């Protein structure tokens, strides 16, 4: 995963992928590849989100 990737970029990319995966016309050949890519982005987004949550909780104190 690229190091300069932001949450928003990853999230928007993920949205596009999910749309493509849900599309009936998707070639089954590319499905596996896209699903793997999507999973990677989901992991990235979840990690980022946890970091942001921890940081804002610290600010609140």
């Amino acid at each position, binding site marked *: 995963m690229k190091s300069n990737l932001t*949450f928003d970029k990853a*999230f928007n990319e*993920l*949205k596009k992928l*999910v749309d493509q*995966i*849900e599309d009936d016309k998707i*070639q*089954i*050949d590319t*499905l*596996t590849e896209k*699903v793997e890519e*999507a*999973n990677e982005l*989901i992991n990235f*987004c*979840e990690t980022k*989100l946890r970091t*942001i*949550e921890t940081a*804002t909780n610290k*600010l*609140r104190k």
Partner: protein
Amino acid sequence: MPVITKLSDIATEIDELIQNKYAGKTFWITAELSGVRKILTKSWCYIDFTERNKNGETTIKGVCWARNYYNIELFESTTNTEFKTGIEITCKVSVSFYKAKGYPQLEVLEIDFAHAVGQLELEKQKTLKRLIAEEKTIKYLPDGRCRTANNSLELPKVIQRIALITASNSDGQRDFKNVTLTNKFGYAFSIQEYLTVVQGNSASKLISEKLKLIKQDKFDVVVIVRGGGSDTDFAAFNDYELAKVAATFPIPILTGIGHDRNTSIVDLMARQLRTPTEVGSFIVDRNKSFEDNLLQLQDNFFQAVDDLIVDRKNTLQQFKQTVKNLHPDSILKKGFAIIKSNNKIITNPKDIKVNSELQTILKSEIIHSTVNKKSKNEK
């Protein structure tokens, strides 16, 4: 040897003459007070009345005894003017002879306030008109207030650095400092005092001089307070020069000159609050509302962050589910299969002819077969 007449006999004779002429008569006079000596312990007041005209001046001594002394107190409280040398009054007097000192004198019986109030107001209006005419930055507003360069300056959202112009050891000084320095929210203030007299003939000049000492970048506001003890004489604050300095002063000025009935010209040029205590409360309240706004913004900020995080988490959860459901493995697990022919995934049955070689891909195995028949799926 000449015949000696006693002084007291002459005095008695003069007294009789004057009594014959003036007994029971009263006069209304308008004159300047050229000398005022109050005997507070007895409630007496010795006065010199002077009239000036082109032929020179006339002075007659006068007195106000205890029985009419309330007139002086009433005059001072009604007109906000100290009964002192230099002012002009209209009053009712009787004429008598002061035998012990040997001079005729006027006894004050009544003082006309309307005249004094009128004079002061006239003077004030004249000064105001001149200011408006000569200072282009001063605009007279329909509600009787004025817009000036000074009171158009934006007040800082937080006021902490204060230049305080006041009289040393005055109630005004004490009240203002008390309200600000011991505020219950614990806000810190730095107050630099510029002590001066705030009433009397030289007050306006001294206040102007203090103002000029105040450095622009060192203070958020200038506070001018007066009051508490004496409720008389705020003529200094109707002074043309002082008003002009205040109107164009580059730091916002807050006044608490401590009089309810009247607004001075300096009040009109600046931002007027009634009393020193009110100026203090105004500043503390302003800081409080800034802090409240800030806390509110902080709340809103964290709320927005929370909402965003929850929203993204939910969406991610949905994405996760969708992706999982559409993963080829999940599909194969449900009993579906992928059919390949010549290493190509078949999505269109027309691509398959009878006798073609097919691979049917299941979750754990691949089945190789040959097509021996094709028919329509009638469902």
